[in-house]
């Protein structure tokens, strides 16, 4: 076994273990910590694949942003320090069987699907420069440019964040409202 294979096996084992931890842990806080491990493992996978910019973006956006947001959500909505809402055994059985069936299905079909030929043997991917040029509408040698998706995603992000700020704004409680009317 060569060094990249061993490295991939270690990273894949860590990521699968963390993903199992997300599903199986009872407390939401522990799930969040396992999710941190899974997201870092996926970022390391991106680095292994040669997509350094994407790995850095994954670390910054997910680990630095989304996960912190989620931990804040847990902090605000949890009643007790480890108040887990318990899952019924029948839900465990249902979830486990559906997930394992889905996993078997996906593995069968991804192994049976035509593997790419020729396989690209360059160990690096285009970095931030070519990606940024593609986003800004500068066509590469094959004429692909992504200016319209870039604009749509930016407007979408702006609108969604305004809506989130509107939804989560501090409201007066109904009791306080009655008081002010009275």
């Amino acid at each position, binding site marked *: 076994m060569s060094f990249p294979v061993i490295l991939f096996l270690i990273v894949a084992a860590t990521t699968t273990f963390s993903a199992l931890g997300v*599903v199986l842990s009872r407390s939401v806080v522990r799930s969040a910590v396992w999710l941190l491990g899974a997201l870092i493992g996926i970022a390391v996978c991106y680095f292994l694949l040669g997509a350094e910019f994407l790995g850095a973006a*994954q670390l910054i956006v997910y680990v630095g942003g989304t996960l912190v947001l989620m931990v804040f959500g847990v902090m605000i909505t949890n009643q007790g320090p480890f108040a887990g*809402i318990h*899952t019924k055994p029948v*839900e465990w059985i249902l979830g486990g069987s559906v997930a*394992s069936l889905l996993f078997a299905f996906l593995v069968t079909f991804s192994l049976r699907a035509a593997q*790419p030929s020729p396989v690209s043997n360059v160990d690096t991917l285009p970095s931030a420069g070519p990606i940024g040029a593609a986003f800004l509408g500068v066509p590469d040698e094959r004429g692909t440019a992504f200016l319209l998706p870039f604009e749509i995603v930016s407007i979408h992000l702006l609108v969604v964040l305004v809506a989130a700020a509107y939804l989560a704004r501090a409201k007066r409680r109904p009791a306080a409202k009655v008081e002010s009317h009275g």
Partner: protein
Amino acid sequence: MADVGLAPFQILAAFLFACGVACFITKRNAIGLLMGVELVLNAANLNLVAAARFVPGLRIEGQVFAIIVIVLAAAEAAVALAIFLNFYNNHATVDVDAANDLKG
């Protein structure tokens, strides 16, 4: 990475996807559901980046789509958390089984 190949990454992504779906089914806490969504989106992203690395025609496209998915996942997490906070303000719980106000 050329001697690892595309298939191991696809299997890893399939496992993460299955874990995310299991999260949807077994978690009753709304924030646990959100973690399942993150796992599913990351599985899709891993597939895209692995395709960008191993399929010669997708070297830019795979990464561009992965970045778009990351942005949309961040937007989704923000608005979902805002909805859950609103729900918590009204119901004092984040148990998804309590969200039955519209039940006929």
